[in-house]
């Protein structure tokens, strides 16, 4: 066990480059700050007044932002743009009918949308008056009924937990993909640098695989935690600057623990798969096996398909199968009160899945880690998976 922890610590520390991470996150914060600053700047520098010449009779009363002047009705279109330059106008509005306008401009700007919205609103009011419909009646027409959803599950799991479920699914998918990259680099580098034989005189294959899977799992979860912290910082920052009160998260602690448990076990499950399969790859740049990365995408994609029906048959069954329970059970836990026996059974199956994937991954790893040159094909991998060490 000491050697497993030693390998795990080594793998974790190899990927823990705090200087690069600090620089990366500092740059990310800088980018967020720059986006925010540019947005504020853009808002503050929006045009205060708009000089607009009107051809024809404008019935609508515009805001004081628009300074209106009249223009000769008979002016020909080809001279309108000359007038815009000559009189330093922002635009010329030609009123053909009460509901038909042409706007001549020399450049695009935000005020043009504001003008259009004001004209639409005014025309809408005029139409309502003609039809003798009050604004209340219009509202009723647009929303004929009102229905409030009272979900018992929200009482049990918390009202904000749905967001957490979605977040957990996305973040665990991110952690799985991070694991893929890390394990591929870690194992193939050791193969390419011919460190394998030296290590095998110190540790056995099982210790090596366990240590790697554990260390890389920790690295992925560390990335996940730091990403969450960054997101929390950014959202807090946005809430503070946008003067929003920031809704407090109403989430049950038990639910959070259950979701995290599935996430961690799921990432560990996939790390074993990746470590085993990475041993079959000599050069990741020229290997056809990197397509394996698509496999963990499957449960993530499937979960989005059944998100609206967390208690349906598909969601129920797939939340028990180890390969898909990683995404499905957190989604169900986040959306409803899942019977405890289902959570327990899923957890037992997932633990069994981790045990067996560990076993098979080690067999594949053992058969391939010291082989160089020709990569094994899928049939070879399948055979090595079935072959026990004895």
């Amino acid at each position: 066990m000491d050697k497993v922890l030693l390998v795990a610590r080594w793998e974790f520390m190899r990927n823990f480059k705090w200087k690069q991470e600090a620089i990366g996150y500092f740059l990310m914060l800088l980018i967020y700050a720059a986006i925010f600053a540019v947005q504020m700047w853009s808002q503050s520098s929006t045009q205060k007044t708009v000089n607009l010449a009107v051809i024809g009779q404008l019935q609508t009363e515009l805001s004081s932002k628009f300074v209106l002047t009249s223009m000769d009705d008979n002016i020909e279109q080809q001279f309108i743009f000359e007038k815009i330059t000559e009189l330093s106008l922002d635009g010329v509005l030609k009123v053909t009918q009460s509901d038909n306008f042409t706007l001549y401009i020399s450049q695009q700007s935000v005020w043009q949308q504001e003008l259009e919205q004001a004209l639409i609103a005014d025309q809408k009011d005029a139409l309502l008056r003609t039809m003798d419909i009050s604004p209340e009646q219009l509202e009723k027409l647009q929303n004929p009924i009102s229905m409030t959803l009272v979900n018992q599950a929200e009482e049990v799991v918390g009202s904000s937990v749905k967001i957490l479920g979605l977040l957990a699914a996305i973040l665990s998918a991110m952690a799985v993909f991070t694991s893929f990259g890390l394990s591929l680099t870690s194992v193939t580098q050791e193969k390419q640098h011919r460190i394998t034989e030296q290590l095998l005189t110190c540790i056995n294959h099982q210790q090596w695989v366990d240590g790697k899977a554990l260390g890389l799992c920790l690295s992925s979860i560390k990335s996940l935690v730091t990403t969450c912290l960054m997101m929390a910082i950014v959202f807090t920052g946005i809430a503070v600057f946008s003067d929003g009160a920031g809704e407090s998260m109403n989430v049950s602690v038990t639910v959070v623990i259950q979701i995290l448990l599935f996430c961690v076990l799921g990432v560990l499950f996939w790390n074993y798969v990746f470590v085993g399969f990475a041993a079959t790859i000599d050069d990741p740049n020229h290997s056809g096996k990197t397509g394996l990365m698509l496999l963990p995408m499957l449960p993530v994609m499937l979960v989005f398909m059944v998100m609206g029906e967390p208690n349906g048959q598909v969601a129920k069954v797939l939340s028990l199968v180890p390969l898909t329970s990683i995404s499905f059970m957190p989604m169900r836990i986040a959306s409803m009160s899942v019977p405890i026996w289902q959570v327990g059974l899923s957890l037992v199956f997932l633990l069994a899945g981790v045990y067996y994937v560990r076993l098979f991954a080690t067999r594949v790893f053992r058969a391939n880690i010291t082989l160089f040159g020709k990569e094994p094909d899928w049939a070879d991998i399948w055979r090595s998976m079935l072959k026990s060490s004895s």
Partner: protein
Amino acid sequence: MQLSVNQIRKQYAEMLAVDDLSFEVKSGEIFALLGPNGAGKSSTIRMLIGLTYPDTGEIVFSIDKGQTKTQLVSADFGYLPEERGLYQETNIQDTLVYMGQLKGMTKSDALQQTDVWLTSFDLIERKKDQLKTLSKGNQQKVQLISAIIHRPKIVFLDEPFSGLDPVNQEKVIAFLQLLKHQGTTIILSAHQMSLVEKLADRFLLMNEGKATLYGSIKDIREAAQLGTKLTVTFSEKVVIESFELTEQVVQVSSIDSHNIQFTLAPQCHVPRFLQTMLAEHQIESLQTAQPSLHDIYINSVKGAA
């Protein structure tokens, strides 16, 4: 620690890598496995350290007080593989401490030994550098340190001189002699015959998985049946064609117009041969030499081919 190998055999698919091989390695000696590429040296070493297992036969390690075991634990031995490398982007100290810890050392002990060995190899100033920043020779030194950092009782070195320049080869020889002086048993394979000849106590020459010659250099010379080499300096100019190959002379080669080298057959009576030569030529001087390990090696491989 002593080692006894009895009739081991290893087959990979269609290829018989090691065939009925037996030998012994005494405690504290330097033992060299020699042979051409594909002779089975690396396969033998890999079986000795337990990376692979013989199909048949037995490997027994004798420890102190008559205790024996058939497989070593990682703390007992050091191994430098033929195809070797270490973590290129990790600093040298961290890598050596990690390897030491994997072999059962405490962190403080591994740190201390790292400093000791890096100092003796003039690399202590570079201990915080990444391995990839070192020259190839210096990288080899770090790899050698990683194999012996835990002070093993027995060390297996597969081609320890490959890729080293003459200066670094001498340093490695000195390092191996130091290890031997400390009581470590060393088993190595190599192609550099002149280096191995002055370093090893005993040898095993292999070809096609089998032992062809085995023992000390004296035993091997006797078994190889290669006669003395005689370099004769003549007073007058001579041409090589005037000397014929006979049962007494197996090879004649010209060094220059006055110097000719004769490789004599083991049964050749040297005084009688010289008498015959003196009847026809005037000899200024002569030198005799025993066949080198290189000659024996080449002869052994040629004979098997």
